């Protein structure tokens, strides 16, 4: 795996939480892309391995699945950090990772925010609220 993908590994190797419709959408899409015998985690890492850097952001990768779904991995730390909604409302700019699923025309399917909460732990938050702590 190349260096630009390693930036995401800390947050992603804890696995996709299997709770809530959002994570099911993620897992379903990743299974389709991974086509492997492994679980959702393997599929996620497979998809991450295929992602390549984009323009417009210094720490963003994207790949397109066989069905046209776009998968973006983004690291919004430091200068790219920004305010979040949901349970992070009112907490100012928050360092976080994103895993986004978009339709082939850029429509919004899912937007997972992975927020480091200290001591190697992360909160996963998406359309269904907090799906993993």
């Amino acid at each position, binding site marked *: 795996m190349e260096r630009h993908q390693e930036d995401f590994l800390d947050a992603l190797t804890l696995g996709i939480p299997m709770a809530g419709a959002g994570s099911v959408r993620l897992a379903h899409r990743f299974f389709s892309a991974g086509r492997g015998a492994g679980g959702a985690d393997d599929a996620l890492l497979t998809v991450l391995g295929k992602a390549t850097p984009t323009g417009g952001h210094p720490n963003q990768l994207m790949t397109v699945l066989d069905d046209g779904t776009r998968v973006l991995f983004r690291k919004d730390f430091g200068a790219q950090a920004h305010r979040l909604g949901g349970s992070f409302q009112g907490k100012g700019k928050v360092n976080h990772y994103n895993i986004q699923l978009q339709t*082939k025309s850029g429509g919004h399917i899912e937007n997972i925010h992975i927020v480091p909460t200290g001591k190697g732990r992360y909160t996963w938050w998406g359309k269904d609220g907090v799906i993993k702590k």
Partner: protein
Amino acid sequence: MVGKGRGYQKMKSLMTPDIHIAEHADDILSDEVVTNEAHQLLVEVDADNKDVYLNFSSRLAMYDFARSLLHEAIYSKGGQMEFYPLEFQGKMEIVNGVRMPLNSARLFIFYQE
């Protein structure tokens, strides 16, 4: 900017005042906006007085952006939308209903769930 003439008339014909927002996200945008990179939104911020400028290159870009907001307001959960420039394999891509040039500021929308 996208100019006037026949192309302008065609664009106007794509902007019906009778709007139906289907739940399926693929139906929000016009094929014209999806396929023509000329349709863009440039967001600029004046750091001195905090004015924010939304510069749409075409009425159709603004129309489809509005449809995207309507879809979010009616159907979506999550409490926020993010808009940002996205270039992939040499193409400027659409994110959440709008295509932004590389020099655009990002745009964030928050709403109560």
